[in-house]
């Protein structure tokens, strides 16, 4: 057993740090932040999100605001999607591409007004996303503000997310029940009944778990009271605080890529199954367009799902082979980017980049699990899809 959690860099604390300490969280360094990795059990937290609800602190994520009459045009140029077609209140998953066509970051763009957008990016990419948006948007009549330090983010995820959020005292959100997936709406939070103190909220029906749920953007000084109110309201419904460990297994089951694992500067969106996110039909140039039109080089590996039997999971960095005894070089067909024993499904799942010839559904491959080649089948993503009534 080895432990490598030592770090010399000063770590930033979430505005909810005291809540996490009180709840008995174990912490991990994440992009320079001390964030809760789990509270008691990552499996229990995972199952709670699948069957009831979990509440996540995502205050480390980057929030960048684009403001001004040409902000929609600016984002059409800066990002891979047609952001000008996003309606007020709507959100869109998009990519910031490099000129060479690789992925600088994946992000969600919320249109919060005719001339106002909120870009939510990965914490680890805050600096590069802010810098790139500033540079790309400077060609247009708009301004870019990095508001990451002034916005906390709380996610409530799970089948009971609506039931809980709709009952949190002091939270007022019009039309919460009818809020559609990937739409957002403003709301308010009054921590103390009768007092005038009121905080603005942006409530979005988005998430990273494969379940129904909401993400609440709020001022850092109001976040602890909002967290406490959600926890109190949800306690009777099975809501638990959930850490980054469960968030990772939840998003993996849902087939959602993670920057640094499935996505990176050397990855073309089409390789990651994100070709649809790059809108080549939109008018005008955008950064990475030329490279995207040329496409990934011939023979570029493709992201697939792998499932296997037993309990031994392939993990990030494990090699994938074409047969149980194929040579290390000529038999190697790819590498795993994320993998775990799926808590919901009970068998090992993984995402891997493999050669196109090995990427078809049903292909039988072998994962080198620390010296043993474990058979695995290629399957379509996601591994897990929630049942929906509608």
């Amino acid at each position, binding site marked *: 057993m080895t432990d490598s959690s030592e770090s010399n860099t000063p770590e930033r604390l979430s505005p909810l740090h005291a809540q996490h300490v009180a709840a008995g969280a174990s912490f991990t360094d994440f992009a320079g932040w001390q964030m809760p990795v789990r509270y008691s059990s*990552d499996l229990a937290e995972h199952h709670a999100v699948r069957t009831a609800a979990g509440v996540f602190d995502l205050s480390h994520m980057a929030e960048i605001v684009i403001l001004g009459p040409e902000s929609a045009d600016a984002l059409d140029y800066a990002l891979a999607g047609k952001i000008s077609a996003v309606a007020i209140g709507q959100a869109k998953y998009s990519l910031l591409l490099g000129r060479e066509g690789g992925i600088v970051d994946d992000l969600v763009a919320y249109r919060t007004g005719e001339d106002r957008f909120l870009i939510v990016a990965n914490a680890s990419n805050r600096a590069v996303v802010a810098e790139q948006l500033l540079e790309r948007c400077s060609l247009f009549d708009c301004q870019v503000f990095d508001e990451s330090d002034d916005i906390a983010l709380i996610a409530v995820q799970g089948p009971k997310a609506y039931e809980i959020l709709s009952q949190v005292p002091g939270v007022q959100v019009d039309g919460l029940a009818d809020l559609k997936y990937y739409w957002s709406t403003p709301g308010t939070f009054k921590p103390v009944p009768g007092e005038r103190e009121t905080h603005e909220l942006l409530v979005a029906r988005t998430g990273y778990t494969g379940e129904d749920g909401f993400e609440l953007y709020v001022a850092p000084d109001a976040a602890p009271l909002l967290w406490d109110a959600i926890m109190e309201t949800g306690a009777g419904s099975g809501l638990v605080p959930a850490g980054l460990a469960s968030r990772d297994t939840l998003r993996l089951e849902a087939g959602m890529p993670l920057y640094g694992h499935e996505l990176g500067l050397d990855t073309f969106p089409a390789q990651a199954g994100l070709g649809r996110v790059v809108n080549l039909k939109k008018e005008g140039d955008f950064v990475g367009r030329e490279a995207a039109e040329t496409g990934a080089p011939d023979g570029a590996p493709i992201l697939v799902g792998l499932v296997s039997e037993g309990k031994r*999971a392939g*993990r990030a960095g494990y090699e994938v082979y074409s047969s149980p005894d194929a040579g290390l070089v000529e038999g190697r067909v790819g590498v795993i980017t994320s993998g775990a024993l799926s808590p919901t499904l009970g068998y090992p799942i993984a995402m891997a980049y493999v050669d196109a010839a090995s990427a078809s559904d049903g292909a039988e491959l072998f994962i080198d699990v*620390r010296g043993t080649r474990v058979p695995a089948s290629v399957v379509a993503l996601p591994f897990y899809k929630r049942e929906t009534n509608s």
Partner: protein
Amino acid sequence: MSEPTARKYTKEHEWIDIEGSVATVGITAYAADKLGDVVFVDLPTIGSSVAEGRVVGEIESTKSVGELFAPVNGTVLDINEAVVATPELVNSDPFGEGWLIKVEFTELPELLTYEQYSALVGE
């Protein structure tokens, strides 16, 4: 088994309870907590010989894989079948029902005391 305070420890976060020439080995609560929920345990076969410092098993959680090192030279007398069937015992009772292997040894290497191990992990 003796109280955790009376046991020996390794830098690899294992505890060793010594009774005559038999060492019972498990991982510490600190290690179990760092690993997270244990979902799979792979242990050596009974009767196999093990060498001090060599990997003899694996403890997998949802997040990562921990290796079990043999703390002594010797022969595996017994393994904890209960922990193979119910890996969460490593989390729920690391110093008791979550024990992993029993090894018969002839000579003990230098091991950490409870105080030395506690100082190592800062607890």
